[in-house]
């Protein structure tokens, strides 16, 4: 038997069309299949399903009919739609810039050997750890025209004697929402940057010091390039989160006054209120191109950096 086996083994090997490398690759693909299937089921299916119903007149409980671009045409006629695009862009860009400066500044501060650093790192996470609902409700109370903390401080100290309706007038509503959104989101940036900063070798700074580099030069030529990939990823993620954020707007202004703070998720939610799923899906789908451009741009920057 053993002789026979020994003789047949090379024949099997000769007839196999797969090389060792191919067999390993095949095994690899097979191992990936479950994850891929899960991804398709949980991400791809809902994504393409949403796109497909945006081309229908589907209402709650009924399948709907194909209506082509009618929902998008209706959307473009909505007086709030252009404002929604504008508000979303402003909110993402301004809050990202604010979070970048605050987050980076705090990360650099917490990266120093200062007293109470551990406590400060924990405290800084509080806005991020707090449930969004609570955080934005608190901000709403702070902004209240009558009895709100900001107005109380300004009127009692006579800094500004008139009541300001922060959330109720067009000029201040969006900035007020952006400020609250920034407050809630900056800890993620700070902690991410702090983690990146801790990975920058100290020798680089020492060598730069020896070469006479100023603080600004060390920041610009060592710190920033070292943490650039993290910055880009954080910008990408935070931009997507901010563009998709709902609770901040809904709790504070519900998209108002008028359409001063209307953003895509709230507009879609109003579609849901009327049970018009096709229109609601169209609103969500309308923001996908902008987010895709952002994703590709940042990915390109990261790869370019590599």
């Amino acid at each position, binding site marked *: 038997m053993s002789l026979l086996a020994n003789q047949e083994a090379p024949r099997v090997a000769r007839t196999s069309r797969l090389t060792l490398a191919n067999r390993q690759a095949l095994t690899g693909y097979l191992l990936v299949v479950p994850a891929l299937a899960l991804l398709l089921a949980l991400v791809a299916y809902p994504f393409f399903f949403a796109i497909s119903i945006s081309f229908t007149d589907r209402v709650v409980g009924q399948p709907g009919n194909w209506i082509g671009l009618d929902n998008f045409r209706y959307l473009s006629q909505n007086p709030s739609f252009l404002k929604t695009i504008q508000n979303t862009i402003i909110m993402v860009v301004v809050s990202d810039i604010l979070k970048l400066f605050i987050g980076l500044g705090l990360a650099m501060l917490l990266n120093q050997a200062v007293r109470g650093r551990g406590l400060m790192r924990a405290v800084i996470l509080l806005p991020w750890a707090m449930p969004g609902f609570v955080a934005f409700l608190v901000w709403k109370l702070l902004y209240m025209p009558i009895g709100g903390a900001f107005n109380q401080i300004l009127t009692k100290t006579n800094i500004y004697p008139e009541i300001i309706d922060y959330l109720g007038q067009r000029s201040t509503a969006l900035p007020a929402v952006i400020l609250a959104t920034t407050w809630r989101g900056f800890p993620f940036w700070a902690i991410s940057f702090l983690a990146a900063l801790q990975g920058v070798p100290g020798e680089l700074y020492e060598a730069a010091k020896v070469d006479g580099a100023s603080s600004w030069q060390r920041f610009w030529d060592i710190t920033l390039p070292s943490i650039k990939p993290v910055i880009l990823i954080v910008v990408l993620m935070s931009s997507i989160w901010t563009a998709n954020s709902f609770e901040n707007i809904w709790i504070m202004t519900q998209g108002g006054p008028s359409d001063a703070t209307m953003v895509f998720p709230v507009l879609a939610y109003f579609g849901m209120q009327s*049970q018009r799923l096709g229109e609601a899906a169209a609103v969500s789908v309308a923001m996908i191109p902008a987010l895709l451009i952002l994703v590709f741009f940042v990915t390109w920057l990261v790869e370019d950096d590599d």
Partner: protein
Amino acid sequence: MSHSSSPFLRRRRTRRQVVGGLAGGAAAFTAGSMLPGTLLARKAPAVIQASGPLTYWGGLIFSDAANEMLTDTINQWGSDNGVETEVVMINQNETNQRVSAAVEAGTMPRALDMGLDLALLLSTSGQLQDVSDIYDTIGAAQGGWHESVDGAVAPEKFNGIRAGVPFGAGGNVLFRRQDILDEIGVTEAPATWQELSDVAAQAQEGAPGVYGLGLALSNVGDANLMVSALQSYGGRIADDEGVTCTISSPETMAFLEWVNAAWEAGLFPPGATTWDGAGDNTAYLSGQAVFIANTGSVSIAAQTDDPELFEATAYSALPAGPVMQVAPIGPNLRAIPTSTEDVDTVKALLEFLAQPEFLGEYYKVAIYGPVLQGQDEMEAFTSTPVLGGLRDLVLNGTAPGAPDVSNTAYADFNSNFTVPKMIQRIVVDGMSLEEAMAEAQTSGETIYAKYG
């Protein structure tokens, strides 16, 4: 409120006796149901309860006592009848969205509370069970449904079915701070919207920090009160057939001139354009508003939390406009989705919740007017002014949507807060009255066009 503290639930023994008697057979039940005011409670029929608990979405109102009483009563009924129940109280400003998601996800509750607009939308898409049988039984047992309520839920408006069992009539009553008005010599309620804003301005002058008109102008259901005001000026949302949007009119312009003048005079509290559903309640309870239009929740809260304010408050019907008085009633329904399997069990629960013993106690702490003629003399409506006002509204108010046709397009129009948004365009964006009206007309046309 715990089980034991609920006056209704304290009568458990009697109720159980009656339940036992009635559950004995259909003949006994029929005999009992023929007597006005007789308890209609019956045990859950001997059907297999569908898998999982009997989930009930109750409409959250601004009265903890009422919310707890409803929850406790349903759970007690479940406990008495061996039915596992789960009550979830839903913010009524969120019901539409919650229901939309639940229908699509196939996670609708077995029964739920809803307003007429949502019932219209859901019945049109075939999402609700016909409950004609228990509607008729309950009506026959308690003196018949009020005509206004019966008309509001007529099957021809709801895809040919009785879409739900009315359990309370909602509607707005004008609240006024009589203590402030006394100081300026105003003893009677304002009869017209113009008079309202005139008195509000006068009252505001004499009471610094207080605003005349605590009326919402934001994207919430409360702000649709402005639709009634618009209609009382002669404006119409749509034509007599309810098919074509006709909001652009000289009458609507007259209404907009009134509301804009009131805004310019500073009569609306700051924040009114972004208030949530509790905005007017908060404004009145914190002493910031002289007038508000409210369903009664403020009175319930004041009675407990601020007796002084409660005593200082007087109530009246909504003012009239130059053309008519529009004071719509809006019956709230308990409905059963078509996805519910154990319909008989759920119907038994809804019948139980229609008992005068329960509703008599519930109305005392809730914000609803009566829906059945047998409820008119309940203590809640004879001893509490604001609830008495709601009863008057049921007897004398206008039909939902009237003079417009209350159909699906009208419900959709209101779900989009088209009239409050038109006002916001003027007072927030500084748009001219003509432009804002033209924009609302375009939005309305688009909405009505979808329903042919």
